[in-house]
């Protein structure tokens, strides 16, 4: 399996890590009723990696993903994204980090209903203050890149599940993020559509060098990734990169 992870000869630590988590814990609830969903995660990811996160239901995959994507706050530990101490950022700074560096794909697509594909894809650009003409051409470009040229005017209800996920991917990549976060992106899709979406993600990883972090239950899906970690009871139980000799 080839990845765009880059040069295997690079030694760990010599290259600046894009993502660097140390001793991350996440507790839901408070006091005795609190539940520790993550119990000390150490994770380093380099620019350009394609990482699959696997593990049984309830093991903490989504929790980890949301922390990595700055959608939620850690309870303790440290998290550096491109050298930025994320745990010290305030809500506005986290928003800006997401706006300029991160893209998201969800299992349930999370598109705006009754809104055309084009306007859905334009949304991140609106918050970036991209001018009208450029906004429209960038959004059309992103839709074309995911194979949806001609469907610009369709609203989510007028698209198939696979097409909706492509719109979501177009929305995530339209602003050229460094990292794409995908929580079970194919969880609602059949096997043929799943293969299409995975090819698309692989393409984005290889050709554009976008770092991709993806949660999945399926081995076939995980097989597209260059590295797989297994989460179990809030801890990383296995990491293919370590098995490979790191």
């Amino acid at each position, binding site marked *: 399996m080839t990845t765009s992870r880059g040069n295997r000869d690079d030694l760990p630590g010599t290259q600046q890590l894009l993502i660097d988590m140390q001793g991350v814990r996440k507790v839901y609830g408070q006091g005795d009723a609190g539940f520790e969903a993550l119990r000390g995660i150490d994770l380093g990811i380099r620019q350009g990696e394609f990482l699959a996160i696997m593990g049984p239901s309830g093991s903490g995959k989504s929790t980890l993903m949301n922390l990595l994507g700055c959608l939620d706050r850690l309870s303790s530990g440290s998290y550096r994204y491109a050298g930025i101490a994320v745990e010290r950022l305030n809500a*506005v700074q986290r*928003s*800006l980090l997401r*706006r300029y560096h991160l893209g998201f794909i969800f299992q349930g697509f999370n598109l*705006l209903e009754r809104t055309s594909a084009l306007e859905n894809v334009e949304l991140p650009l609106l918050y970036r203050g991209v001018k009208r003409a450029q906004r429209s051409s960038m959004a059309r470009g992103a839709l074309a890149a995911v194979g949806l040229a001609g469907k610009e005017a369709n609203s989510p209800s007028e698209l198939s599940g696979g097409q909706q996920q492509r719109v979501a991917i177009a929305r995530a990549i339209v602003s050229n993020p460094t990292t794409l976060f995908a929580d079970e992106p194919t969880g609602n899709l059949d096997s043929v559509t799943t293969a299409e979406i995975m090819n698309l993600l692989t393409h984005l990883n290889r050709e554009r060098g976008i770092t991709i972090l993806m949660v999945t239950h399926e081995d076939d899906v995980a097989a597209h990734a260059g590295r797989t970690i297994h989460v179990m009871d809030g801890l990383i139980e296995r990491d293919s990169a370590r098995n490979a000799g790191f």
Partner: protein
Amino acid sequence: MLANAFLIALREIRRNLGRAFLTVLGVIIGVTAVVTMVTLGQGTTMAVKSKIENLGSNLVMLRPGAGFGPRAAAAGVPNFTESDVIAIAEQIPGVAAIAPLRSNMLSTIYLQQARNTTVTGTTIDYFAINKWSLADGRFFSEDEASRGAAVAVIGNTVRDELFGPDDPIGRKLRIGSASFQVVGVLASKGQAGMGDQDDTIVVPLTAMQRRLGGRSSARDISQISISAADGVDSNLLISEITALMRQRRNLQSNQDDNFSVFDTRQIAETLSSSTRMMTTLLTAVAAVSLLVGGIGIMNIMLVSVTERTREIGIRLAIGATAREVLWQFLVEALTLSSAGGVIGILLAFALCSVLAPMIEVSFAFNLQINLIAFIFSAAVGIVFGFAPARRAARLDPIDALRHE
């Protein structure tokens, strides 16, 4: 940034047209109701005021029965006699002019035209006391009054309705079963609220007594109008007249007055207090409808909170800040409620222009109430549209996304 908020808000409105429509409708109903009610209420008050001003300012009236208004015509209450008039004129100081009145609704005919009009028999002082002036011709003379000559001074409405384009002066007019010659036309006092003051014919009292409706008794004066001399305290005048009339009617100290004396100020107070009450009532009704509109808006907003919270989650995940999301909601709420406010005001304007002539009041655009209604509608929009969004925008994006 603000332009962006506008763009996003407008897309959001377009996306949820049904919800937007209901919100705007709530504001429209409230604003239209309030502005219409208050405007018409004030029109009525103004009409009443101008009617009272037309009555004359230092006018004192004596009527049978207690109080004034329609109730005064209660059956079995004795009218006044001409000697009552003379007694007041001679015994009460401060009376500048005094006129006995006897009024009847009678049929009037000129050529092919016929209609019923209030015919008043009186003396020439009546014109001065009630501030009538002439549009054409003359009042009847002292001599005609004492002779009981069949002459009539007609109001503007009577002239228009009966004579049309013809010059009425010198023409013969049939009133009841008698023929009268028109000698003058009164200058119009206009449509002032309740009833048309120009729909009137004035004839000498003696002519009325002799020629119209027969004279059943000497007690045939239904009203005595008095104008007070300048500088006379009308309250004093009223109490003196009351005392004199009680004595003339042999009322014992334990008996109530079976007549009433009042001046224009009292009429003004009674009428304006009743129109004020009506206006207050209407305003209360209108305010309730504004509130109901507001509750409707709140309902719509609360129902859509689940959907909106997830939408906010999406926006936050994509990189919007809480502040940007709030601006969007603020602009959206303001746009909808001001649209409702403007439409409501226009609708109220249209409604008032149609209704005001129907209830015979003048319609004046009232900036103040329009502003108040508009600001209130904007406030309703902000409070109910914006408040639910405030909470959602403060959530962590993942909590907003997970919201069920």
